[in-house]
């Protein structure tokens, strides 16, 4: 056997551990995901990688986001330990979707022509996993830089960003640059869906009900009003562009990307300070808040009033803070989203056990009280490890009485990490298995006519569940489909096969996450062969690992050798965000 590279610190795990239930479920889930992913791709794609879909696409300003989004887990499953073929298929289908939407006319220079960052984010969350899975794919690396430059002001053909005023020039942006005017054509067929929302403004002439969206005359007025007020200038949802720029940084280490991310966020911090601590949701081309909004700081697209309210501002700020922390190592970037969460919380009223907070702000002031969404606290705490977040997490655990739904399922996980709910791993993995099976049932019985399929066909049908694997194996919240990239405590590589992800037969379970350490259980369920793996601090080597068990590491990664059928719990102590992050894999894998 070749000697290990001199720098490798190796932890040798020899203690026999019969396959725990979570470990066999985890391995089974990976197997099932491999099969399901393959079947999913085979069912919905043509031999050239394009989607089995309509001949012509008339989606208004809708574009490729749902299509890319539908395949977003393929590379991620590989990164976690699934079949490398899934990543290969992901790249292949990415090309197919790109060609297809280029033909449709919605993609130009391989990027969506004009769309908002809510939707860009949904599509390009799929893009970021490609760098994780293979930092050496020159084609995607070049794309990453090309895309980033469309938003950093470096690309004259796509002047989305005004470097002078540090603002994005429009809500709708992309490879064809900022879109300064909207027409009804852009909003067909979206207008149909929008009848389910409140109106963008209460003072649109002649429009008093959301049904106006499907009344030809009123529809035109609505769009005209929105175009006048919303189209031009910057909105907080554009903060969702930061991961795209970070993506280029993780490939290249280019300092301009890091500088852009921090400077752009600082612009929003500045405007927030100037607006009495509330992030304004619209900025005109001159850089003035409320410029096209009769001076109001509210009323922007995906802003405090419409379509949902403040949570969209907060989520974009959290997404950007995560990226900025990754690039700079500083937790201060969470001050901005924390301030907005607090501000809303201070408007809260107790209703029974739960705190109700206003979802929106408009000419009436704060309005639309509803139970406070708890998940932002967890998403921040996993980065700040700040007692202010943890205090609120504990409060919400108390308020909810153990029942969580939707994105608040992270609270079950928090309880597990606090030593409660010992059956959580098995239940979470079982839940994801159930999800895959439900989707597979649909896929295996697919018989619809592709001409009738809507944009969300693939994101609805896609069977790959990564929530449990992300939480349990690498210690990440499920990736926010609104455009996030992976942020986690640990990441694994197979040292023998030199691939990303858990080696075959190996299962991992993180049972405790603290600022300075995580506890992780590693088990080799194979009774015949030893396994060698790399455990890395963070998805991008951003955490410096100090010790693994009793072994000193002082590096971004260490090696583990697991004897057949062996397993152990390791305390991995670390200094978070101490290293420059990169998609590059540990050298030992080269």
């Amino acid at each position: 056997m070749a000697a290990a590279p001199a720098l490798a610190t190796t932890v040798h795990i020899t203690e026999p551990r019969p396959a725990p239930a979570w470990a066999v479920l985890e391995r089974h889930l990976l197997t099932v995901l491999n099969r399901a992913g393959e079947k999913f791709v085979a069912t919905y794609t043509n031999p050239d990688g394009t989607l089995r879909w309509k001949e012509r696409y008339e989606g208004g300003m809708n574009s490729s986001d749902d299509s890319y989004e539908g395949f977003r887990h393929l590379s991620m499953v590989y990164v976690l330990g699934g079949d490398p073929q899934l990543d290969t298929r992901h790249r292949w289908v990415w090309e197919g979707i790109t060609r297809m939407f280029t033909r449709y006319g919605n993609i130009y220079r391989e990027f969506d022509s004009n769309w908002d960052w809510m939707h860009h984010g949904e599509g390009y969350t799929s893009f970021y996993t490609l760098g994780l899975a293979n930092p050496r794919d020159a084609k995607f690396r070049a794309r990453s830089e090309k895309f980033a430059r469309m938003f950093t002001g470096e690309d004259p053909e796509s002047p989305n960003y005004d470097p002078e005023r540090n603002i994005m020039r429009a809500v709708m942006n992309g490879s064809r640059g900022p879109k300064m005017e909207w027409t009804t054509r852009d909003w067909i067929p979206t207008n149909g869906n929008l009848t389910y929302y409140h109106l963008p403004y209460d003072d649109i002439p002649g429009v008093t009900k959301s049904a106006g969206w499907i009344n030809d005359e009123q529809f035109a007025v609505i769009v005209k009003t929105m175009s006048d007020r919303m189209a031009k200038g910057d909105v907080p949802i554009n903060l969702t562009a930061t991961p795209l720029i970070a993506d280029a940084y993780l490939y290249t280490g280019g300092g301009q990307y890091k500088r852009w991310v921090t400077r752009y966020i600082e612009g929003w911090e500045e405007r927030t300070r100037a607006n009495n601590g509330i992030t304004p949701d619209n900025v005109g081309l001159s850089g003035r808040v409320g410029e096209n909004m009769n001076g109001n700081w509210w009323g922007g697209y995906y802003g405090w009033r419409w379509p949902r309210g403040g949570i969209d501002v907060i989520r974009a700020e959290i997404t950007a803070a995560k990226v900025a922390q990754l690039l700079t190592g500083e937790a201060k970037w969470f001050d901005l989203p924390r301030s907005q969460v607090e501000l809303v919380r201070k408007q809260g009223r107790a209703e029974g056990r739960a705190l109700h907070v206003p979802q929106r702000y408009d000419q009436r002031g704060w309005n639309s009280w509803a139970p406070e969404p708890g998940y932002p606290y967890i998403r921040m705490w996993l980065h700040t490890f700040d007692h202010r977040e943890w205090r609120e997490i504990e409060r919400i655990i108390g308020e909810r009485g153990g029942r969580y739904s939707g994105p608040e399922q992270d609270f079950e996980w928090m309880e597990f990490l606090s030593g409660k709910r010992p059956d959580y791993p098995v239940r979470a993995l079982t839940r994801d298995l159930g999800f895959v099976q439900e989707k597979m049932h649909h896929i295996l019985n697919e018989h619809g006519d592709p001409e009738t399929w809507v944009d969300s066909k693939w994101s609805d049908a896609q069977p790959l569940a990564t929530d449990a694997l992300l939480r349990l194996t690498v210690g990440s919240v499920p990736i926010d489909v609104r455009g996030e990239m992976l942020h986690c405590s640990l990441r694994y590589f197979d040292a023998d096969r030199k691939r990303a992800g858990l080696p075959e037969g190996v299962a991992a379970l993180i049972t405790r996450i603290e600022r300075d350490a995580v506890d992780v259980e590693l088990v080799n369920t194979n009774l015949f062969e030893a396994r060698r793996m790399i455990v890395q601090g963070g998805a991008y080597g951003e955490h410096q690992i100090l010790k693994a068990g009793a072994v000193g590491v002082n590096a971004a990664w260490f090696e583990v050798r697991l004897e057949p059928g062996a397993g152990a719990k390791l305390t991995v102590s670390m200094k978070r965000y101490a290293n420059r992050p990169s998609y590059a894999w540990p050298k030992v894998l080269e």
Partner: protein
Amino acid sequence: MRHLVLAMVSAAALCAAEPLLHIKTPMPAPAWALLEQQLLRHNSAAVERFAAKYIDERGYLAHTPRWGTLDGPDDAIETYWNWTLLHALGASDRVLELFKLGQEGHIKQYNEIRTKLTELAKNGSYHREFITQSDWFHTAEGMRAFLLQGLSDPNNDLYRERMKRFAAMYMGEDPDAPNYDPVNKVIKSIWTGSKGPMLRKATTYDWVGDPVPGIFHLLHNPAGRGKMLDLEANYKKMLSHCDEYLDSVGDNFLNPAATILGLNAYMLTGDEKYRKWVIDYMTAWKQRSEETGGMIPSNVGLNGKIGGEYNGQWWKGTYGWNFTIFDGELGETAHRGYFTDGTFPGFGNALLASGDPAFINVMRKQMALVYAQKKEVNGRMQIPQMYGDPRGYKHNGPPSWYHWTNRLHTDRLMELYLWSMDRKDMEYIPASAAIGRGGGDGYAESDRTSAWLGYLEGKAPDFPEKALQADLQRIQHKMQMMREDETSADTRLADYLLDFNPATTNGLTNLMLGGYFSRGRIWVLHSRFRYFDPVKRRAGVPADVGALVEKLGAASATVTLVNTNPIEPRTVVVQAGGYGEHRFDSVTAGGKTTPVNDSVVTVRLEPGSGAKVEFAMARYASRPTFAFPWDRAWYGKK
């Protein structure tokens, strides 16, 4: 329990292959199902690795063979004791192939032996592929895997021919092996085999064989497994182990175990004569126990009278009730009475062959008599193990119970309970909520009787996972032992590798089949269910299918079936009993009950689907058979 239907079902019914039960309800793979599959896979791989290291291309086991009971032919072949069962549960086909290689190699290897001090192996240990002469304690141990091969390999002509030949040796049909007297219904000696019965006193050389020069590793080393034994230096001691093992003539209560040959021949051929012999011979034993008031005599004379070779002292005979002897090797008095070892298998075989619960009553009565003597010593229950002159085998004074110990024969009580499903028979079986470390026979698997019963009684819901995990760990441990084993063929005797056999089947047998082997003694499969893959046309669950028997009632059983494959449906044939000896009356799943009236039910499982399935069943209502479900129309007629 009369035979309301025959197991023969019409070909049309099976060929139509229209599943009676179609399970479509989603069920995310439960951990137990994944552990079952992992255990089947890892067992298969472990057996392959064992074979790669210890079996050569001729099928010879890499060790130093010799004749003897401490270490002899039965030990060598017993090394593979559960490989055929493992295959029948669903392990890889390679496992069955390797067993066959080992079985054929074993016969050749042990036929190369030439003993001088005993006649028994002067021309090899086997004659006409059956042991020349041995007792059924050892003969059966050596045949364990072979006797269950039919579960997987019922259409194997060689296997069928052998089984018929061997059965004939014990039915009075074979003039070269006149072991059986059909008039008095006795097997004539404790020493029987293909050379016929031993109708003389045995010699210690018959038991111990010739000395072989060398220093050896030995599992049954009195000094401990880790020590090496100088066989020549120790030879005298080994002989003195058997100084008092010389009585041979007359039937012995180990011999009922021989009925497995008749039962198996019946299940391979459907020929009534085999079934009749099993029932006749065991009925004779039943009558003998009635003559003593419920004690199963340990000796029957050639005249058919109980105690016939010992002036009516039916408690005499080697390994009998009164077999308290001086073991010259250990230098101590030893009690070596084995009243359950041949009788429970024999009466169990009679139950399978006849469906008649009267055979269970013999066992129940016997255990009741032993338990009537129970007493508490230091807070623990003890029962007598021996009966006869308490001074020992040499003495002929009046009999009484003696040698109370806390060996409570819980495994046999469990066997009895599972046959009767009468809750009164559970009285002395502790149902435990926890899976203990288990004892067991060293190389056998740990005894989980109490924990499994606890699970069936609803007290130990985590039993399936715990048991399967422990079994995986056992394989891991065996693999480690194998990797670290530094012995060589020249320094290993026949029993040494018994301890290295990695195949681990008890957990799977309990959980998938609702089956049970008392302390791992595998000669016949008593179970509630068995599974077949109708696509691959083989025994065992199809890939990805999990089965968990959750409840056993007298006329019902509940099993959860699940297909963990996310893409492909699976079809499994569920059989009532290891040999189709039971009958399904109806099947209930998802609140819907369907009548069955057959010993097999075909179930289709959609991808990722599963359900709890409850069967109403009449136990021992069908004739047992080895036939694959799809072969039953013609089976036995050829």
